[in-house]
């Protein structure tokens, strides 16, 4: 498989008033087309910085970063983003919110609207296109945010702790949903999370990061099928994988 995302020797240093902060160090990472990759690590390990570099929101200090063979450029429309909060525009209905990535570039066509409607169907939000965000539950808002991130068919779906603000049960059902969306759309997905079990549940490959400077300390291939169900959470192999990842944090924090 060809690599869609290629990061090599990536470095990021922030200048702050109290001196330089070395946020990322020698990050090498390839992501294949259609792959689901999770990046786990403790807070402050630079995983959000890494995601922002992938999104083109931040520059890197050294090394190379490319998507589809081209250096990452802000706003080229090649990434879709999901944040911890749904960040829907409260003054627009769900349909208009989902269409935002397209409507910022051009007047949405009828095909665009059909695409948005199809995504809302896929996430069981069919009847909510005309509703305002505040009329939806937190989980439904986050599903709408996922639709918005996919409407312009980006080559890369970036998710930054997408369910961190939701309760555990909503989280579980959304994880099942994300797995289904990923399989149905064939998108390439990068998930940033500090939840080890979420990473194991969703990803095909997991990169484990350590803090200060943020670097990749382990890479794990998850052996499960593409289709995942909540039964997996009780699987001994699932438990073995999560505890293997957890050891890293015990070691790095000792």
């Amino acid at each position, binding site marked *: 498989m060809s690599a869609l995302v290629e990061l090599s020797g990536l470095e990021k240093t922030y200048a702050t008033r109290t001196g330089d902060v070395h946020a990322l160090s020698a990050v090498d990472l390839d992501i294949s087309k259609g792959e689901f990759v999770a990046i786990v690590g403790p807070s402050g390990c630079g995983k959000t910085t890494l995601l922002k570099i992938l999104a083109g929101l931040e520059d890197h200090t050294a090394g190379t970063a490319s998507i589809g063979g081209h250096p990452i450029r*802000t706003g080229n429309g090649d990434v879709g983003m999901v944040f911890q909060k749904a*960040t829907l525009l409260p003054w627009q209905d769900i349909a208009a919110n989902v269409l935002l990535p397209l409507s910022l570039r051009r007047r949405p066509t009828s095909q665009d609207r059909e695409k948005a409607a199809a995504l809302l169907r896929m996430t069981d939000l069919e009847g909510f296109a005309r509703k305002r965000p*505040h009329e939806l539950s937190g989980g439904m808002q986050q599903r709408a945010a996922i639709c918005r991130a996919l409407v312009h068919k980006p080559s890369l779906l970036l998710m930054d702790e997408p369910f961190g603000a939701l309760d555990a049960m909503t989280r579980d059902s959304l994880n099942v949903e994300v797995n289904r969306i990923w399989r149905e759309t064939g998108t390439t997905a990068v998930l940033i999370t500090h939840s080890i079990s979420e990473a194991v549940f969703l990803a095909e490959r997991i990169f484990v990061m350590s803090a200060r400077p943020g670097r990749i300390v382990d890479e794990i291939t998850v052996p499960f099928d593409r289709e995942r169900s909540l039964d997996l959470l009780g699987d001994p192999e699932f438990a073995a994988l999560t505890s293997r990842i957890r050891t890293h944090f015990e070691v790095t924090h000792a």
Partner: protein
Amino acid sequence: MVGALAVLAVVLILWQILPGALNVPRYVIPPLSEVLVALTDPVAFPRYVQNAAATMTEVGLGLLIGVVLGLALAITLTQLPRVYGIVFPYIVAIESIPKVAIAPLFVIWFGFGLPSKVVVVVLLAFFPVLVNTIHGLRNVDRDLINLFRVNGASRMQIQVRLMIPAAMPQIFSGLELAVANAMIGAIVAEFVGAQQGLGVLILQAQGRMETPAVFALLIILSALGIFLNLFVRLARKWIITWERT
């Protein structure tokens, strides 16, 4: 609503009864009926209307200019973080000055006519709009701005389609303060020196010890203030449909 109206009814009844019952002199607090006679006086009423129109012209013009300037400066400053850092301490400093105190100076500079009043109203309406709008614009969710940037939004699109709508609640809070301030500014400016306006009529009635007329003018002034405030609140409800009450 019913409770509030009941309170008003009780206050009005007490106003009618108490001054006579307690032997309060009429030039101190006249009973409600005398105030109403003064208010509906066929000779005085056209003068009230004419002068109320003058005052509201000052308020309207001053609000328009003050609000537009406040919004424009807020949007400009939040886009220029360096300039903002330099200017903001001065905004805070000027905000804490009681600006009506400058009114006499404006009469010297701009005369006894309309301009000096409008300038006072502009000054009083400008700051709450400026400060509240800046607050609103600076508190827009970073992730929303990032979302727009990731999707290739221009600076203009970020302002028009994100920042300004997102800051609407704070802009309206500023507007409500600006409206209340504008009325204060116009009346004080008229007290300081003017040829017409409700402030002038209040001073004249006071000079003749016509207390019922003073009260009648205060009622007109309050009604105009309430009407303006109501207008802004309705506009807020109409524009910010996503705000939960």
